């Protein structure tokens, strides 16, 4: 019989504190969807998206993949718009750690699984690493066709003429292709995918990458993948080259200057007096660079991992 004393007892080990969110058969179903997605790069695999302790649209798809693919003693990084300290990232990180026997980090180079919203780390990821992307709208053709049956036919027959027409129209109207995030890309020469809302800056690292990218859309119940060493070509015309975001102003720490290679993806922030300042979107990467440059104390890195 459970006594009050038992209930008040603190769990003896970390292991005992785990309260799994997904049961093993759910994990298996999600892993099978991931395997199918890897086998058919770019194809959107339907899966039985579960109710998560986060609202749909808040990373429930990415969370399910992460929970399903992590193994014992894996190291997990969760970040949001490049920021490890974002509220949603911190909550998801805590949730994952409470549910699975994993440790967490902010350094993508140490991580086995990196769950992200809207960014790919500036660091070069390597073999064996898995990037899990939270996807709001997995269907790249949603903007050009609404009929689901017709959408499936278009993907099945690789009939992407309407997508090309929308790019043509964009150039005619605006002089450039205006799609900034979620740029449509052809994966493995076959399926067009939406590269979630990652900026254009993050599209080239997906091409012939050494890591596995898994895209999870919880609300739309779809999983798709870019396996390692797969071609990812942004759709564009032969005479209209694909361009990434430019660094127009120096970064506030001064380490990123316009026209300097390799650069980084900067975001615009309001400054103290209402002026605009530019900052590296990837906070962990920026902190490490500033540390190397002697602009930051050692303890600043540890402070990055915000756990409320």
């Amino acid at each position, binding site marked *: 019989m459970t006594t009050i004393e038992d209930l008040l007892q603190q769990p003896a080990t970390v292991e005992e504190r785990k309260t799994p969110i997904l049961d093993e058969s759910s994990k298996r179903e999600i892993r099978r969807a991931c395997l199918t997605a890897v086998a058919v790069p770019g194809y959107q695999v339907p899966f039985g998206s579960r109710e998560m302790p986060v609202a749909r649209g808040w990373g429930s798809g990415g969370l399910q993949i992460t929970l399903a693919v992590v193994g014992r003693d894996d190291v997990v990084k969760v970040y949001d718009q490049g920021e490890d300290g974002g509220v949603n990232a911190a909550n998801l990180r805590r949730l994952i750690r409470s549910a699975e026997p994993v440790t967490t980090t902010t350094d993508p180079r140490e991580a086995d699984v990196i769950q992200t919203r809207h960014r790919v780390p500036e660091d070069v990821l390597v073999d064996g690493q898995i990037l899990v992307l939270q996807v709001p709208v997995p269907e790249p053709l949603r903007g050009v066709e609404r009929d689901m049956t017709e959408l499936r036919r278009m993907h099945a027959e690789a009939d992407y003429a309407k997508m*090309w027409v929308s790019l043509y129209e964009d150039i005619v109207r605006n002089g450039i292709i205006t799609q900034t995030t979620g740029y449509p890309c052809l994966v493995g020469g076959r399926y067009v995918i939406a590269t979630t809302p990652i900026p254009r800056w993050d599209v080239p690292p997906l091409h012939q990458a050494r890591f596995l990218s898994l895209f999870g859309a919880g609300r739309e119940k779809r999983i798709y993948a870019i396996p390692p060493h797969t071609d990812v070509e942004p759709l564009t015309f*032969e005479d209209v080259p694909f361009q990434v975001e430019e660094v127009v102003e120096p970064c506030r720490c001064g380490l990123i200057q316009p026209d300097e290679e390799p650069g980084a993806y900067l975001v615009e922030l309001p400054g103290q007096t209402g002026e605009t300042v530019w900052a590296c979107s990837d906070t962990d990467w920026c902190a490490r660079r500033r540390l190397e440059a002697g602009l930051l104390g050692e303890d600043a890195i540890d402070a990055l991992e915000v756990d409320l």
Partner: protein
Amino acid sequence: MSPHTQPRQRGMIGGTAATALAVERLGKIYGPGGPEAVEGTGPEFARSVSPSTGAVIGCWDVSFAVAPGEALGIIGESGSGKSTVMRCIAGDQSASAGSVNLAGVDRPGGTPADLLQLAPSDRRALRIDRLSVVYQDPAEGLDLRVSAGGNIAEPLTAAGWRHFGRIRQRAADLLSRTEVPLDRMDDPVLTYSGGMRQRVQLAKALANDPQVVLLDEPTTGLDASVAAGVLDLIRDLLEETGIAAVVVSHDFSVIEMLTRRCLVMHHGRVVEEGLTDQLLEDPQHPYSQRLVGAARG
């Protein structure tokens, strides 16, 4: 591109006059029953509804061939089955019987492939560069929210064009050929008049130099003076390009202007066929006589 298609040939093949499009005993039954349902329908019974099964016989036993560069007319009152024939050839509807051959579309052995037996995806692939359709309603053939240039870019990109400048140039060439003012090329087709929409549809249909174009009542929705202009244009284009055409219309003046040979359809059957001018002068079948009489007032 369909695996069945061979490099395209035009004009004379093997020293004999080639056929661009051949339709054999085409039939379409809406509703229950197979060929037995056809019994008791047709002009001699003056009905299209099967007395045995209640099925509607859209068309039955329709055969014709069109040579490269030839325009063939199909005329009949509304409900006579002429549009059904067109849609079965185009692949918008599945046929119940018969066969359709398009020059150059062969089975792996080299014998002509029956379009009606092709996989739906292969049939759609033919619509990119071999078989075009101009519909009576421009909304069916065009995306009205997209610009005229964009509508033409669709078949071009489907055929593999990936150079923005060349796509634009090709679209401009086609639009100037179909007499659409180029300064309106980037406006949504929604903002165009009916006659201009039809011209854009024509330009789109010609984008990839198809072998055969099917024109389904191309001027019916237009007022008389605009229709005359579009008809003139179609006639010139057919002469210039040497594309084979099938023109479906209920209007003898359209058929007379565009075609030299035509079929008359009634209750889903072909009741008479012949040279257009002879048929107009001297119709043999009572229904043709009625049609001509009505047209001549």
